[in-house]
């Protein structure tokens, strides 16, 4: 339960971070676009390289988000699996109790 909560909270924090980063990234895109509208042809490759770098950063941030989602999905899978294990353990306990009860009778 604790780790489920931790992963859920962690993912929520990651989404907040991602929202902030994506807003900044939109600002970066606007800056590059604004610069490119008033630049010379010779400086355009520098802006293109800059845009490629921004794209790479964006990919890295997207991967961080994807990692958070992977953790969350894996945790949910593990949680469901743990319920099956828990159920088996409960069954064993119930079975043992029943045997004890029947044995006593």
């Amino acid at each position, binding site marked *: 339960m604790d780790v489920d909560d931790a992963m859920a*909270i962690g993912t929520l924090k990651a989404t907040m971070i991602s929202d902030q*980063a994506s807003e900044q990234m939109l600002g970066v895109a606007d800056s590059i676009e604004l610069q490119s509208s008033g630049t010379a042809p010779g*400086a355009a490759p*520098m802006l293109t*390289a800059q845009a*490629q770098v921004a794209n790479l950063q964006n990919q890295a941030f997207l991967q961080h988000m994807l*990692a958070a989602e992977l953790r969350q*999905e894996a945790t949910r899978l593990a949680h469901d699996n743990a319920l099956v294990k828990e159920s088996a353990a409960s*069954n064993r306990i119930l079975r043992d109790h029943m045997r004890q009860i029947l044995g006593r009778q």
Partner: protein
Amino acid sequence: MSKRTRVNRFLKLCWRAFGGRLVLVLTLIGVLVLIPTGANGQFGLDPCCAIISAGLQSISGLLKNVVARPLSQIQQIEQQGVNFEQQIVYPAQAITNARGLAGHLQGQFRQMTRIYQLPTGSATLPTPQRLEQALLSHSPQAAGQVSARYTAVYGGVMSDQDAPQPIRDMVDATDAEAQAALKKAIAIDALADVELAAADQINLQIQSAAPGSAPILEAQAAAWNVRANAYTQSAMAELMRVRSIDLANSSAHMKLSATSNSILRDATDRMLGRTK
């Protein structure tokens, strides 16, 4: 007759034959040799020099008209080209501005990176905390600790006495996929950090790059982008596997439930048959 006598007789005969004429000829020769003749100095042009001078002037005119004029035009065109490149294609101000933008954006990128490095750990109990530390470590070395810490939190596969084999298989496969996804998440975090470092490095190079070398940096960044896309695809594939296993588990639960119902029905029939 002696030899000397013969020479004297020969000279006498010569004198009689040529006499004064010989003296005159010798005198003329001496005068011609001794009298200085006129020399062509700086200001005295020979007809030959005049011809050469005219030829040279002709060549000079030719060079001026045929060679110098086109050369001058070529020089003008080259100068126009240089001016065009300096003022239109590569104006210093535009290049300075582009470099300035790279510096400005680098600050923003670093700020975003710092935001992503904020701690997001939230577990409160020791065992989940240890698992969470490994999961959020961004360190591939921590992947080796995931299995033990995962089992500590979620438990292992139940014994064959506690569950039928199909359920044990399902649980084991599910645990394997969950752990694989958690390890993949660690790897993706680490790769993203490497990509951020590469982006920072390329950005730094852009700030001091010449316009001509910018396409090289652009190509490097593009190659990194291709690589990043591949890693993203890999993470997406892992995510799809997790969801597929989840779906398969739901389906397996339904199948197991149907089997259990069948067993229960048969048992009920037997009980009812006995009671009847």
